[in-house]
């Protein structure tokens, strides 16, 4: 009864639509990336220019700067989100204070559900130099008001802060789910051997945490590669190019400078990184499903 024809009919709509909206634009982008394609300067024409766009991307210091900044941003936010998330997960896995723990679980959903563009708006308000909450904390400790979003280093910090606020709950919820998967009797058997919390964590709980953690790390890396909304709203990549991550730089070249040939080449180069990440993700997590 499991006829190939039926299978194809079930698959056809999804395959057709994804080919149309996923693959066709991609091929179009490849085409554009191999041409002179500045829509603000149509007089230059739209001729093939081979790999000239790619060459200029590779020679473009700002592109490497944006890529470096994206990596720096990853290194700033991911370990922090991991550490805070793990702390929260262990806290919520604890036995005491059921009401507070239930409240915290509900609260964790809030940042995750908040529209990233709105996270950017909240960031603008919170880090405002005149009346922001951040400066209120600074003045509480006796400091002077700081122009957070006007200073290159502090602006990056402010953006990273909001990103950490939004995504720490993701780490926390995933690790909490993994912790609840630790068999209770295995944990209790281990407590007969040792009373040291660290050893219990390292040898009993950690192995259960590892798969979920890997999933989150890969997904977050891919997400930061395409991070746009919150940063765009909060700083537009500024001051200067201090918070111009790779997707913001690509957007600026494509839609404010309107050199879409160069922008397409940059977008495709960053796509290669995400495809590698996607491959790793699937290799690790769907082995048994696809076998």
């Amino acid at each position, binding site marked *: 009864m499991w006829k190939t024809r039926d*299978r194809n*009919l079930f698959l056809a709509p999804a395959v057709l639509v994804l080919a149309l909206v996923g693959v066709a634009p991609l091929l179009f982008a490849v085409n554009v990336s191999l041409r002179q394609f500045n829509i603000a300067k149509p007089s230059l024409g739209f001729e093939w220019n081979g790999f000239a766009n790619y060459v200029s991307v590779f020679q473009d210091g700002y592109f490497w700067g944006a890529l470096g900044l994206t990596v720096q941003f990853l290194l700033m936010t991911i370990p922090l989100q991991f550490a805070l998330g793990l702390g929260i997960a262990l806290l919520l896995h604890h036995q005491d*204070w059921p009401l507070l723990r239930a409240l915290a679980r*509900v609260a964790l959903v*809030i*940042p995750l559900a908040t529209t990233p563009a709105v996270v950017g708006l909240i960031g603008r308000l919170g880090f405002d130099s005149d009346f922001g909450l951040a400066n209120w904390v600074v003045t509480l400790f006796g400091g002077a008001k700081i122009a957070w979003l006007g200073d290159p280093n502090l602006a990056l910090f402010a953006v990273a802060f909001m990103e950490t606020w939004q995504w720490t709950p993701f780490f926390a919820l995933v690790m909490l789910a993994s912790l609840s998967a630790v068999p209770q009797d295995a944990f209790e058997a281990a407590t007969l051997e040792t009373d040291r919390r660290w050893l219990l964590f390292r040898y009993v709980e950690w192995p259960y945490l590892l798969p979920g953690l890997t999933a989150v790390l890969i997904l977050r890396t891919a997400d930061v590669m395409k991070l746009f909304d919150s940063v*765009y709203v909060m700083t537009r990549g500024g001051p200067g190019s201090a918070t111009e991550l790779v997707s913001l730089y690509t957007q600026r070249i494509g839609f404010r400078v309107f050199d879409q040939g160069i922008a397409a080449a940059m977008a495709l180069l960053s796509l290669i990184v995400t495809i590698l990440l996607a491959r790793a993700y*699937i290799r690790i997590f769907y082995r048994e499903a696809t076998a």
Partner: protein
Amino acid sequence: MTPNPPAAALEPSRAYLPKKRHAKRPNWLIAIVLIVVIVAIVLPFYWMVAASLKSRADVLAFPPVFFFAPTVEHYAKALLEAGVGKNVLNSLFVSVTTTLLALMIGTPAAYALARWEWAGKKDLWFWIISNRFMSPIVLALPFYLIANQLGMLNNLLTLVIIYLTFNIPLVVWLTMDQFRNIPREIDEAAVVDGATMFQVFTRIVLPLATPGVVVGAILSFIFSWNEMLFALILTRSEARTAPVAATSFMSGYDLPWGVIMATGTIIVLPVIIFATLVSRHLVRGLTLGAVK
């Protein structure tokens, strides 16, 4: 975290009941840390809602005002003068339509992937999921050019279609698990009774998979509702979605913070309610089923 006297392991009563020592004496440190965590998570959100309800003077006050007389003037202004109501309707139309389409297109594919085995399945699998990893900027460029050619810029249907690139993979991955958990004998029994495969799918398997479908629908709605990059590039005044409208107030020096935050609250509140409803499945949705 806890002090360990070396003799602890030798003491049978404590060793067998390790949790007891927490239960005996409430650990206040943990309560305090929990409260700090909750405050840190809720504060930025609360600050947005508070700013939307403050008078202009209270928003701009320094030191910030924590207690104030609430006003709904910014909501009235946002909805009546700034036309945010129209933007919210746009967002609603786009999110609901793309979600329904993603369900109609995605669930049959998930069924096929859950039930049939064939040689190229792995590649198809990889291809469908890899759409989730696609950076929107890669698609935004060609979509902009194509939509411009076809006169479909500033058209909500363009967004509906483009959002399928991330909603179909999501629906496929979330419902497939659900289909796998339904014994295949049920399908086979129905076919023996004379049902076609299409009837088996729509009348028997799909209703049994309702929980997975609902989770897929809600998450797909949330992701579409929250999206901004495509909407920013592909729409102008008439077809603006709510997140784009909220950010469009951010120009000039004298920002209308009350209206901005009222719009932000209008956008975020329904999402948070939906997300709370599916909070148990949020992790599964965000990790494409890799973490249960």
